[in-house]
């Protein structure tokens, strides 16, 4: 899919208000929550230098959401972060748009909640191959299966790691106390 999208970063940036309007119009009620974080800097400490959008989307709308971002600019992928919130796993995909204009960058975090009863996510590897290591990391640390990811081998954990143990989980699949060694 991404092969058909020209791999260039656009020179000019779109205003963040227009991106918000575009996203809301396209996804409507699939956007559960949308926050704007402002980044300050410079000798006027209240001057806003750039902004980040934090968008909680429904799981079913996640993949179309990422595809839609490509309409603005080729998406730059940073990382996936995540946490075990009890019934669900919360995943945050961190992207950037508009890398080139001064102060133009808009950080976009797509937040999805994945139920523990069905821990599978559509992979975005075909859109953004740079996400490979992050998807493999989330798979081994939190136990999410990425559908469409070609290489699902361990990446950071040792080769002889017991794959039943998911280091970032806070439930029974997380590391037990005897696996944690306190150093002096």
């Amino acid at each position: 899919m991404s092969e058909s999208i020209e791999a260039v970063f656009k020179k000019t940036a779109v205003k963040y208000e227009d991106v918000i309007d575009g996203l809301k119009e396209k996804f409507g009620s699939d956007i559960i929550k949308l926050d704007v974080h402002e980044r300050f800097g410079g000798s006027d400490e209240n001057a806003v230098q750039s902004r980040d959008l934090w968008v909680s989307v429904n799981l079913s709308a996640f993949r179309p959401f990422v595809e839609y971002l490509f309409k603005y600019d080729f998406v730059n992928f940073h990382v996936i972060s995540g946490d075990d919130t009890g019934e669900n796993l919360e995943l945050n995909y961190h992207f950037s748009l508009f890398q080139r204009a001064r102060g133009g960058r808009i950080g976009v975090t797509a937040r999805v909640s994945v139920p523990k009863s069905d821990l599978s996510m559509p992979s975005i590897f075909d859109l953004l191959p740079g996400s490979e290591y992050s998807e493999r990391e989330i798979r081994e640390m939190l136990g999410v299966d990425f559908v469409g990811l070609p290489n699902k081998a361990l990446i950071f954990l040792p080769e002889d790691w017991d794959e039943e143990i998911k280091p970032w989980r806070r439930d029974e699949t997380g590391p037990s106390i005897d696996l944690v060694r306190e150093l002096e």
Partner: protein
Amino acid sequence: MSTTYKVPIGPVHVGLKEPVTAWLTLDGERIMDAKLRLGAIHRGIEFMARERNPIQVIYLSERICGICSFSHVLAFIRAIEDLSAIKVPPRGQYIRSLVLELERIHSHILWSGVACYSIGFDSAFHLGMEMRERVMDLLELLTGNRVNYGVATFGGVRWDITPEFAKATRDMIKFYRREFTPFRDIVMEDPIAQARMRGVGVLTKEEAVRYSAVGPVARASGLRVDLRKSSPYEAYSDMPVEPVVPQDYFGAAHGDVLDRFAVRVLEVYQSLDLLEKILDGLPDGPFVAETNLNKVLASLKKAEGVGWGIIEAPRGDDTHIVSLKGGEDNVLWWKVRAPTYASAVSWPLMFRGNELADAPLIINSLDPCVSCMERTLTTNAHGDSNIITKQELIKRCREKTDTLRARGGETR
């Protein structure tokens, strides 16, 4: 009929400075395919942070890396500042930028030396190591440490800049403008270095975009990306920063090892210019928003949410995401994405079609993070070496810093 062989480079290899394994598929000398296996040095730092409060994590984050330690601290601190809306007084911002640029200079000079070593140019390696001492001394003069400076905190910094330090910095700028030229000559003029590095380990512009490459690796492939421009923070908000790209100097970007070398060498000059601007524009006033750490901790205990800190480290964009929960002392979770993590995805592409002998050079061209291990062994006039205990080491470190400070910035 051709036979292919699988050869591992690493996890421990003379050409590598850090444990990483590259499994190369070879047809004769030619590399057909490469697969990377990371994790040999994974320490579970993100997991450790869950039992520490944000102020303790500042010092934990500093120990992620021995070279870009300040970048990691600042990315973490900015993530916390993002979620808790702490603002930094201008003077504090300028001092942060100043340390960032000093760190970039020391990282790039170190790398330039190591790159020369990788191509067998040992005299330039020693020159780089010697030259780097000047900026290391300056960092020690400001912070008391060569690495892990302990200088940043929430809402500002912990040390102010004295007029002596400002003078020593200006002297250093003059010194490097005069003395760093050999490295500029290597990338711009030396035909042997160019023959050795041109066309090796290529990452095209298109691949750099698709694979989300960062920092000097992305810029060497011709991408005009630099967070100091696209998302200005700290002092960079007040001054223009233009990404250093090879097409401005060579006419075209090749995305090879030579271009990565050139970008880093030229960025040293860019950092010297930025340092001058930072010193010229250094605002008066407080350098930290709140000095009482108990008050800071109390306000962070009330904060809740997720914050994202992102800065341009020497190796590219360094991303930290951190979450706090209201009423909890400790960090809920923390995700660190060091620049090498991002660039490593495109590593296998750089190997394709190259020769086996170039593999260590290609691995090093990414500038994978390396820790520095100095002051563990000394040699006397007769060449005998003796091991020094930790206490003795700390005593000697403090003596050296005191001497440096007593000389009022006369570093050499």
